[in-house]
């Protein structure tokens, strides 16, 4: 049973085949931006250690126009990543039950989103308090 000659298709340009693949790649790509933002924060903390001069340079950079654009981009990336991550959260949990009935994935997603929003607001409030 050797005389078959199957045709094997290439995976070249696979992400073009379906929008879902492009959304998936976008989700993964947000990690790069998030990683860069983490580096930026690390730079800021190192600058704090090095002294006021270094810290001023860092502040000037983040307050510059490119710096602000980068931060907006990072915010968008964070928001999108959080949204998708929370959407996938139910897939990583054992099914949750309420009595006999299973809680739907949509509900888990919504609850997680609610918790995320609350935490974010709480953090903002706390941060604003700290600044004052």
């Amino acid at each position, binding site marked *: *049973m*050797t*005389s*078959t000659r199957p045709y094997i298709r290439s995976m070249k340009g696979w992400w073009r085949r379906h929008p879902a693949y492009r959304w998936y790649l976008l989700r993964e790509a947000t990690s790069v931006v998030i990683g860069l933002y983490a580096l930026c924060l690390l730079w800021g903390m190192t600058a704090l250690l090095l002294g006021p001069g270094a810290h001023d340079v860092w502040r000037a950079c983040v307050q510059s126009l490119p710096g602000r654009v980068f931060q907006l981009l990072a915010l968008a990336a964070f928001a999108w990543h959080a949204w998708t991550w929370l959407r996938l959260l139910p897939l990583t949990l054992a099914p949750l039950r309420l009595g006999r009935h299973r809680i739907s994935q949509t509900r888990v997603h919504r609850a997680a989103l609610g918790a995320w929003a609350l935490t974010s607001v709480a953090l903002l409030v706390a941060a604003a308090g700290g600044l004052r």
Partner: protein
Amino acid sequence: MQTIDADVVVIGGGGAGLRAAIAAAEADPDAAVALVSKVVPTRSHTVAAEGGAAGVIHPEDHPDKHFDDTVSGGDWLCEQDVVEWFVGRCTPEMTQMEHWGCPWSRRPDGEINVRYFGGMKSPRSWFAADRTGFHMLHTLFQTSLKYPSIRRFDECFCMDLLVEDGRLRGVLAVHVPSGDSLLLRCRAAVLATGGAGRVYRQNTNAGIVTGEGMGMALACGTGLRDMEFVQWHPTTLPGSGLLITEGARGEGGILLNRHGRRYLQDHGLGPVDPWPRPRAMELGPRDRVSQAFWHEDRAGRTVPTPQGTAVHLDLRHLGRETLEERLPQILHLARTFAAVDPVEAPIPVRPAVHYTMGGVPTDRHGATAVEGLYAAGECASTGLHGANRLGSNSLAELLVFGRAAGEAAVAHARNGPAPAPGVERQAEAARRRWHALLEPHHGERLATLRDAMQAAMEEGVGIVREAEGMARTCETLADLRARYRRGVRLDDTGRAFNTEWLATLELGHALKVAQAIAHAALARRESRGAHLRSDGYDRRDDEGFLCHSLAWDQGEEPPRIDHTPVTLTRSAPGERVYGGPA
């Protein structure tokens, strides 16, 4: 041609074939078991069984009741010694399936739940929601992966049984994707190729249920028994014939005609109340319920639909929650294929061909008249079903007799005589014969012949039959065989994955099986079980016809029909009483 040696070749990867292969592997782990299937085993038609599998476990049930239900359901044409043997083995087999992981539906306390099916005195159908066959098939397939001695030959189409001097010597197959021939030399084979419902147009069967296993066995001298008994399932979707399980009625579904009347009360299955009660109304046996439809249709009390007349199967009173838990697949089928939501509206249904009660005659170990050839499942006629099969007995049958055949085959392979030389020559001759079908560039299209066969069968050998119609069908079939011999023109003459060629091979066998059905029906001048005549033979005639029919291959001529006695042990033929007061 590649040659492979095996101890046992199992032909067919459905429920019976897988059970046989596992039984052979367990009985003798050193035996080489080849599982040859024309599709990947999980595509086999067992997958489509919905409602349940019979096994006595309910406290009010008893094997004697299972025996009585089966024998009276079969209109006393059952081999009673076989039925006795069978009813004692169902429950251990169901339990074995449970141990292999089959997700049988449970009661709240975690014990096995059972439901009523038609013709049962007590609830006896083990079920896995309404996907019983699906779960059984996948459990068996996945379990079969445990046994290293089972070697699978998926998508290998069995072309011929190689028999000489009444003894099986091997199996000739073709590997479908490549078109390469394959000779399996063996001492024993189990035929588990399923039924032949596709000889009819409106049927519940998968496209693969074409009867070539029966045809091959017939050609090598086993005969075919009781072929006139073809089961119409009463509730299928008009047009497509997709199955709406009897379990739907087991759960409490009711059948209504166009006036909203539960018409079964007018056909010897009433009175209506108290409802539900066993063996009455919608829980009558399949032959009676399908025949009742025919009468309603004749009287103009059915509902017209674009795909033909129908009656209504009403499940609305069961409520969404029960339907979703017990009949999820029915919900899906009705919504997808009939655009009806059973929660909101009744499902239009009508009978369609579902099952061939007859098949290759075997004893209870599956042994056929050919030494070394065994048969199990729908292709076999163990004598279990008689003239009408009870719902749930076929899934139980494929376990009980699949196992028996597998064990008997491996024992035969171990103790039987050494394989005779020279089978290669026989295989080569057979290969040439079947490859010759690829050659004609003239003749008719395959679909023309197939459609004509199906139309003739619907026309002359339907739910209700009369001599003239049957004779006409016999003539048409003889004519179709002659046209088939003159040539089927194939568009496809390649070797690799040539499904047109394989379908032509199937059709050749199907025509012979169809002839066996029509001629056996014509020869049975009485009405019994699923064989109902309207031409003066509308009663059962135990004097003349308490006997099996046997169709014998006559080469190019139509089959010869004989009759042989039925084994009765403890149940004398009586009246089949359904309905009546509770």
